[in-house]
């Protein structure tokens, strides 16, 4: 296996340039449609009134937070086990986007919690696990930038992502257990009453919009990672030549 370290990203950039216009346009379309559905079409909740509309950004963001972490874990596994040269870049490009979604989930969760429970932060099981996930993201990004040699940072962060991924279900389970232990009253489930179809549609459309947005921005970020690696190598060569 002496495939040159960065041989096939050549095909990747061409592929990315073909996909990007489509995924970008579709993302904008889905997000616009989702926005319209969630703000204008879907009814107010009989208990929460219009504050339930926050769910249409909060829940998709929380889904994306976990989804992107899974993508990072999968990319890390393929980087470490099959030494795929592109996988490192996908993980490195996705981490900040995932952290952004996680922060968004926390912030909108807090904005939604205030009218419902009267406080900005509630140690609800789901919010708490998303908070822990946020720190896993920060740890991943901090580690991948902690080395002078970028590829070393990527590989170290890949190992951390795999260990983190094994721990996510353990953390999720133990936080749920902990919250039932300390939560006498059964608190209103954060994603509202059983989802009525008129509320399910905006949720799904927004979720699709978020996913398409992620694909597009990830392709852009991987392209710039590829460029950055190229720049480093080119300037390294320039140093050698002088």
């Amino acid at each position, binding site marked *: 296996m002496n495939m040159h370290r960065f041989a096939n990203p050549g095909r990747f950039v061409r592929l990315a340039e073909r996909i990007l216009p489509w995924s970008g346009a579709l993302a904008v379309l889905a997000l616009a449609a989702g926005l319209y559905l969630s703000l204008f079409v879907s009814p107010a909740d009989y208990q929460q009134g219009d504050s339930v509309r926050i769910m249409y950004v909060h829940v998709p963001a929380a889904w994306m937070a976990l989804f992107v972490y899974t993508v990072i874990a999968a990319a890390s596994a393929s980087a470490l086990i099959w030494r795929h040269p592109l996988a490192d870049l996908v993980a490195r490009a996705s981490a900040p986007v995932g952290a952004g979604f996680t922060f968004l989930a926390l912030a909108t969760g807090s904005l939604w919690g205030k009218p419902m429970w009267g406080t900005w932060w509630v140690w609800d099981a789901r919010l708490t696990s998303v908070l822990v996930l946020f720190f896993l993201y920060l740890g991943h990004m901090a580690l991948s930038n902690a080395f002078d040699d970028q590829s070393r940072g990527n590989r170290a962060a890949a190992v951390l992502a795999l260990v983190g991924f094994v721990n996510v279900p353990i953390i999720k389970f133990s936080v749920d257990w902990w919250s039932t232990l300390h939560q006498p009253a059964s608190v209103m489930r954060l994603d509202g009453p059983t989802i009525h179809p008129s509320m399910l549609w905006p949720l799904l459309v927004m979720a699709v919009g978020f996913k398409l947005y992620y694909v597009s921005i990830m392709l852009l970020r991987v392209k710039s990672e590829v460029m950055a690696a190229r720049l480093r190598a080119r300037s*390294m060569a320039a140093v050698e030549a002088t």
Partner: protein
Amino acid sequence: MSLFSGRDLVCVRGDRRVFAGLAFDLPPGGAVLLSGPNGSGKSSLLRLMAGLLRPAGGDLIWDGAPIAADPEAHRARLRYVGHLNAIKPVLTAAENVAFWARHAGAGEADVGRALAGFALTPLAHVAGRLLSSGQRRRVALARLLAAPGEVWLLDEPSVGLDQASLAHLSTAIAMHRAAGGRVAVATHTPIDMPGAQTLALADFADSVPLTVGSDW
């Protein structure tokens, strides 16, 4: 005649390609002297041969079989002395050598012989932190005699050694080769190794910059 050889080896450090297309053959009893300016990849090649560093391209072959097939067997037969001496300040010279001897399966008797090989017997019970850098280097080299493996990979072994110790090193290498062992040495100060091949790393320095980007 089991050969330890490398074929069109490519080594990449960070985003820099250190050398490419490098080949070598090390027969039993053979010796290879790695020469070249600083940064030409002498240490990288030794670490590659030891298996610490994974080659970006090319193969390392032992007796016809690629080393990657059985890395543990390869590790069992090689002894590596790097820039650092791996000496614990709180352990005595004997304890330091004994740990690595046990780690390679040798017994207590070999430790005494190894220390004697580098005239360290009087220092056997001196704590590592009290040893001078030359003495520390000799303790690191004494590991080779305690549990002799087939392949010695020595990175600047003679740094800080006085004339007497240099002589010990040369005899140790000569005896090792006479017993069918092989040695690869990266050094700037000359060590007399009769019949040793020389491998100039500069010949394999890579002129074309790492074509990381041209096909993007």
